[in-house]
């Protein structure tokens, strides 16, 4: 086992009823890298993230986090330092952007039920302290102007950005991003790419990025896993992936 591996996926197989969604997938993620997972529609990318975040329990294989925690069916991934965003946005619709981020501070806060209800000394100070952490993220993501707006009323691109903020508010070691740029225009995509790179470089967060936009992935990923119909068909640096015949076939096959 490589000590630099933050995550090791070993022979993961997942099926629903008769359909195999993931078939003996292996890969590793090194601390501090941006690891992309790409593949045509229905390749099993989201299912892979669901396995890592403990939401799906693969029938076979292991998911080892930091060499010691098995994530297979794990319930407390937040406590381990894993956060994610969802392909179709999983925000708390009726809360403000600010409260969505504050809600992600849950595991870092200590106040109990009684303290919350009384809002005396400790709870009040704790709220203010975490508010400061969240405001720093709000500044970073440039969403000051919408902090008190209900997220359900925000345009799509901003909601994606708030969701990224919520994941960051957990202070994860490993961040899973499921198509963070899907459905965005070029300008929004560039903003999002900039945020992802900033998170990676300045905050030192390891990132697993699922994304459709090939050119973008080639630009920002350190290494890429390619899935097709639930099997891994390639794994390597962007320039290797770009000229891999299997990958070209999978993508051309989809386009034709």
């Amino acid at each position, binding site marked *: 086992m490589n000590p630099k591996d933050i995550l090791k996926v070993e022979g993961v197989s997942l099926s629903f009823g008769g359909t195999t969604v993931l078939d003996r997938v292996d890969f590793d993620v090194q601390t501090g890298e941006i690891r992309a997972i790409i593949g045509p529609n229905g390749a099993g990318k989201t299912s892979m993230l669901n396995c890592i975040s403990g939401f799906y329990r693969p029938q076979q294989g292991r998911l080892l986090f930091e060499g010691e925690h098995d994530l297979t069916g794990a319930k407390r991934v937040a406590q381990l330092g894993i956060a994610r965003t969802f392909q179709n946005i999983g925000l708390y619709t009726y809360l403000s952007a600010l409260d969505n981020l504050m809600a992600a501070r*849950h*595991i870092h806060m200590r106040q109990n039920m009684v303290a919350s209800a009384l809002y005396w000394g400790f709870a009040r100070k704790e709220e203010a302290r975490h508010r400061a952490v969240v405001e720093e993220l709000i500044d970073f993501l440039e969403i000051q102007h919408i902090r008190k707006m209900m997220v359900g009323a925000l345009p799509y691109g901003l909601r994606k950005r708030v969701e990224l903020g*919520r994941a960051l508010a957990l202070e994860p070691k490993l961040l899973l991003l499921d198509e963070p740029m899907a459905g965005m225009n070029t300008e929004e995509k560039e903003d999002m790419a900039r945020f992802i790179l900033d998170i990676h470089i300045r905050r030192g967060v390891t990132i697993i990025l699922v994304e459709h936009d090939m050119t973008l992935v080639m630009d920002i990923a350190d290494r890429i896993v390619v899935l097709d119909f639930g099997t891994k068909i390639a794994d390597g640096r962007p320039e290797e992936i770009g000229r891999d015949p299997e990958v070209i076939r999978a993508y051309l096959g989809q386009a034709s």
Partner: protein
Amino acid sequence: MAMLRPAGDFDRSYEQDMALLRQPWHYWLLGIGLLAAFTLPLWGDAYLVATANQIAYTVIAVQGLNILTGYTGQISLSQAAFMLVGGYASALLVIHAGLSFFIALPLAALAAGAIGLIFGLASLRVKGFYLAFATLAAQFIIPWLSRHTFKEYLGGTNGAIEVPLPQLGGVNFGEVSNYFYISLFVLLITTILMFNISRTRLGRAFVSVRDNDLAAELLGVNLFTYKLRAFFIAAMLAGVAGAIKAHSQRGVGTEFGYSLNESIIFLGMLVIGGLGTNLGPFLGVAFIILMEDFSDLLGGVLAAAFPELADQLLTSFRPIFFGVALMLFLIYEPRGLAHRWQLVRAGWRLRPFAR
């Protein structure tokens, strides 16, 4: 729109930004509201004070339901049953343990909360539609137990026991104008607790369970224990409301209501007032109780005019008006009166630029 604030309104600290009362007019509104409520027995007649008293303890029960159904998104059809628990608990503690009502009240809340926990443990394993049915269990079992067990304490099939008045100094709480202050004071406390819960860790966890339970779980919120907490708080507030009601009516038991019908009306009040808002319980409860009084008034007038139909006329307007009001709200203002109020307020804030 919610973010628009008058120019020149800046906060110097996060605590200041998180405060509830931030504008001069907030203080004015609160002051005038409190003044009106506390002087009500001086300028209102007995009927008005009695209605206000009923509104006050009903709001407490609906605030509890609001935590469970409004904030946490878990529907419940058993709030009235937990009021019954609180009413009996407080009455028995005063009668048999010789406690003061003011000590029995918080204990009754804990008793109702504890019974709530037991039913919560059983019913919160299912979701949505099934949960509504699971909570029916409490609404059937608790009133049944009150009629068929411990008959010498609970009144048996009479469905009623006598409840003594609270004793404090020489005040005669037999006068509703005095009793009203008990209800009002407790309501003030529960309201402060509601506002605190909704702006802190607990309230955010509740709403995250409601808005996206999958995301909430991935962010470290334990779904089951938070639903259980909500169930506990809801039952506790029902217990408080039940105790206040029991001592105010000087009797408790199934003869005094506490039926499924009431549990459903509580839900209706919450929907009409606005689920998941702190203003909602006040608006919804006042709306329905005033409408009920109006229904009775109308029924009485018509019954006098058509004596041969008196029986039907006297009883039919309440359910009809309730049903129609609920339907109209669900269609035209599903977010309740509280949302309407927010729109009005937002409109004022934008003046003179609105429209």
